[in-house]
């Protein structure tokens, strides 16, 4: 038993960071994830696209177990997702997540938002945590807003703070669940630029988005989902210029021609 797990871990640490195997999930009668197999390599940027209700957000949320699954396995860095409890909390700290609605802690300043996890989960020294937080806020371009409250910031600024908050934990992989869908058009780019910079720096990223431009320029791989299944996956060039499945052709024809 032990030998087997050791062997597995050795194999996994090589390249595969996130591995989903025959994952199924239902919301009542709706079979929202159907036999999902997906492997994401270290340093890879995977963009998940698809029509509304195709299960892409749910897929993203299962990876740090904000949604539970009915069957199948999910492993991160060779370790299967633990059940609720301390183990799971530890794992979540290694998986950064950025939400559509930012979800900054409204009663804390921007700086405290970025420090909280470092101090309470990583048990970092307050001074070091503050230094790191300020550096990250500078990096995403909102250093000047550090002492304000989230409600005083624009949507784009809030989302960049949320990215800094996730980065502060030093995550192995970052999940983005439609990070620009709640933003005014003129603020989308400032968030996408931060994400592109992250991708260039080699962060492993899983991005659920409707931003085809981002998929083209930053993704290593595009995963197309429809009706709870992964219908097609390929390089962005191939996917956008020459999609194989009818479902993808149909989807692209609806979004790319106007």
């Amino acid at each position, binding site marked *: 038993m032990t030998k087997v797990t050791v062997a597995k871990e050795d194999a996994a640490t090589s390249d595969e960071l996130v591995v989903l195997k025959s994952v199924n999930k239902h919301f009542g009668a709706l079979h929202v994830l159907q036999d999902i197999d997906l492997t994401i390599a270290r340093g890879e940027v995977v963009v998940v696209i698809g029509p509304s209700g195709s299960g892409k957000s749910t897929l993203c949320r299962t990876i*740090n177990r904000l949604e539970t699954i009915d069957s199948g396995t999910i492993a991160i860095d060779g370790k299967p997702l633990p059940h609720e409890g301390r183990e799971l*909390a530890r794992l979540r700290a*290694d998986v950064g997540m950025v939400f559509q609605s930012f*979800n900054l*802690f*409204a009663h804390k300043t921007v700086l405290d938002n970025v420090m909280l996890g470092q101090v309470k989960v990583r048990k970092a020294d307050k001074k070091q945590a503050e230094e790191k937080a300020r550096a990250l806020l500078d990096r995403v371009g909102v250093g000047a807003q550090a002492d304000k409250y989230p409600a005083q910031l624009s949507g784009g600024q809030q989302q960049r703070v949320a990215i800094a908050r996730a980065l502060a934990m030093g995550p192995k992989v970052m999940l983005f669940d439609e990070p620009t869908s709640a933003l005014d058009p003129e603020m989308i780019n400032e968030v996408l630029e931060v994400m592109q910079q992250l991708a260039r720096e080699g962060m492993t990223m899983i991005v659920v988005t409707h931003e085809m431009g981002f998929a083209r320029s930053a993704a290593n791989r595009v995963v197309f989902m429809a009706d709870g299944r992964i219908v097609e996956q390929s390089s962005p060039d191939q996917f956008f210029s020459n999609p194989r499945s009818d479902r993808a052709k149909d989807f692209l024809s609806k979004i790319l021609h106007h």
Partner: protein
Amino acid sequence: MFDFLDKYDVLGAFWTTVQLTLLSAVGSLIWGTLLAAMRVGPVPLMRGFGTAYVNIVRNIPLTVIILFAALGLKDTLGISLGSDVVDTSNFRLSVLGLTVYTSAFVCEAIRAGINTVPVGQAEAARAIGLSFTQVLGLVVLPQAFRAAVGPLTNVLIALTKNTTVAAAIGVAEAALLMKEMVENEAQLLLISAIIAFGFCCLTLPTGLILGWVGKKVAVKR
């Protein structure tokens, strides 16, 4: 006109009312918060307990609870809360009864406050690796309390007036004094007015100050 008051310790009686109020308020704030935590927690057994507690306790008249504390706990089961002096023991039993009763309302006020905190914030807190207690203590409850100041003020004012039920088991607070004065004196209207005025002196400032506090600490969204 106010001469008869010299025979009575009006301030002393109201001081007992204040003590009953403050001790029960602290007790029910702590126990009510724990109940609210149980009701939103992940453990089904605790959720069930919290729900059952609130629904049973808030539907029993306070008089019944206070009388049970004196007749049931003390006289039948012999639980006198560490004092053989009847007055002290009855005072403590009243605080216990008021706490048991008021905490059901505190729980619901705090739970309403918890519902004002967007679910996404709790998810984000879990996503950075905070445990359930940390999510509750660091992110959800601090915002829930701020939103609950208004409802909690109502509960505190109701509690202040509910302390008069302690008169039923002979605790020497304002209502018991009123009963005594009414039996011995002729100025019934004046006596009622004095006691009513005394309660207003306690509850009006409570409402005003906490109303101001509630606005001051409100979370901007």
